[in-house]
């Protein structure tokens, strides 16, 4: 991926600030689930642009194909059939990285610079720094990153950071035939979503709304949902996603606390030795033993 130093907001396993002098606008991809027809053109465009081909799988009786995200399939359409308001509904969600403002993957990653968050909100993996530990998978609240079986590196949607860097929209956006995927500044996308949500409400979808979950600081991939009150209907989209408290504990308070404790023991030992002196066999006992030997 194009490394634009001035555009880096945060990098993984780095305790000092990244470049802060240049501010750019935040971008967002808006996926209008209510307009999606499940044609998978976005999957093909993603595969084409990034030049990656998932292995051809087998049909398992549903439209999902490939059936899951993988190192070579960074976006997949997930199809679910449900009954809402007495009607059958076929809900199709384009799954992939949500580009969280507070990314669990970046928080968990132990390798400096393997995960980068750009000022525009894109969270990108730099595979040359990836060590293959899988901590990003552990940290992600959306179960997105995948470790390649071939090279043990982590992969996921880059929001086409290379295209965005030169002023183009992501490949999936470019190709979507119904305009269900749009791209622009996050502010603009929220406005587009608001218009669409209002329209859906007039058509009887009272609970229509925008999915931009607060728990992860908002996302740079957002969904318009007909049933924003039940995101779980859309193939298990989490209702209130956030970084797991276990991950926060592990990568939050535990790090400085343990480091300080170990430093404390080291210094404590040194100063104990210096102040109390070594614990040697007493002269008295030495003499006893010598007397024994003399006998």
């Amino acid at each position, binding site marked *: 991926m194009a490394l634009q130093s001035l555009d880096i907001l945060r990098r993984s*396993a*780095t*305790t000092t600030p990244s470049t802060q002098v240049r501010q750019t606008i935040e971008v967002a991809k808006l996926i209008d689930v209510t307009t999606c027809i499940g044609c998978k053109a976005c999957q093909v465009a993603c595969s084409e642009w990034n030049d990656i081909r998932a292995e051809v799988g087998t049909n398992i009786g549903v439209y999902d194909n490939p059936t899951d995200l993988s190192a070579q399939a960074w976006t997949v359409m997930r199809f679910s059939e449900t009954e809402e308001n007495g009607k059958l509904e076929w809900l199709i969600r384009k799954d992939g990285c949500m580009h969280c403002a507070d990314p669990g993957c970046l928080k*968990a990653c*132990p*390798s*400096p610079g393997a995960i980068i968050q750009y000022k525009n909100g894109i969270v990108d993996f730099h595979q040359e720094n990836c*060590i*293959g*530990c*899988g*901590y990003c*998978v*552990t940290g992600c609240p959306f*179960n997105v990153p995948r*470790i390649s079986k071939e090279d*043990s590196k982590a992969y996921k949607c880059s929001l086409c950071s290379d295209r965005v860097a030169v002023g183009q929209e992501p490949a999936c956006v470019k190709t979507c035939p119904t305009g269900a995927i749009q791209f622009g500044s996050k502010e603009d996308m929220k406005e587009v979503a608001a218009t669409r949500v209002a329209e859906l409400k007039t058509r009887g979808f009272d609970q229509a709304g925008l999915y931009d979950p607060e728990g992860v600081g908002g996302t740079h991939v957002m969904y318009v949902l007909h049933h924003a009150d039940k995101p779980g209907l859309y193939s298990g989209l989490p209702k209130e996603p956030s970084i*797991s408290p*276990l*991950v926060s*504990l*592990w990568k939050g308070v*535990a*790090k400085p*606390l*343990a*480091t300080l*404790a*170990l430093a404390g*023991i*080291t210094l404590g*030992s040194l100063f*104990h*030795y210096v102040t*109390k*002196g*070594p*614990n*040697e*066999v*007493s002269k008295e*006992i*030495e003499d*006893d*033993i010598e007397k*024994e*030997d003399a006998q």
Partner: protein
Amino acid sequence: MIRDPKDLKRYNASERANHWIVGMSFILLALSGLAFFHPAFFPLTQLFGGPVWTRIIHPYIGVLMAVAFLIIFLRFKNLNKMTPADLEWLAKAKNMVDGNDHDMPEQGKYNGGQKVLFWALGLCMLLMTVSGLFIWRAWFGFDITAVRLGAVVHAATAAVMIGLIMVHIYAAIWVKGTVRAMWYGTVTRGWAKQHHRGWYRQVTGK
């Protein structure tokens, strides 16, 4: 160096070798593990041929340590049973740390502090092994909650364990004449009489 033939045998060669396998694997694990724990320690990965190799090697050394530790644990568990004298020793441990060990109760081969360390390390090793398997992605694919729990337990227990081992190493350096027990297996009679009088009487018959 010619050693005194009257020195007391504390560890045989097999026990010493076992201890060094545990000790060396522990040091390698601590250095490589710390590298993934905090960015400040990440440069330690250079000791293992770079970060990717560190990630690959660490769990295998862990398996080695778990096996070697289990053997040493079974070898010494009977000698580490707590007795009332140990509790008394622990109650007075502060005097010991202050450098005043004259009125400490008589101790067998191991004192109360060593025994507590033994059991604490045993518990740590168990937690490290199980949680380590949970997060070993090269071979296992556990449920995400188990992996997250494994990551926290592995990191927290490791910190405790490193702390315990630092105390263990420091105690060996602080109490003069101790480290040689791990090199040659022997200690002087004076050392034994001062620090482990019960054991001294047992092996010398005095």
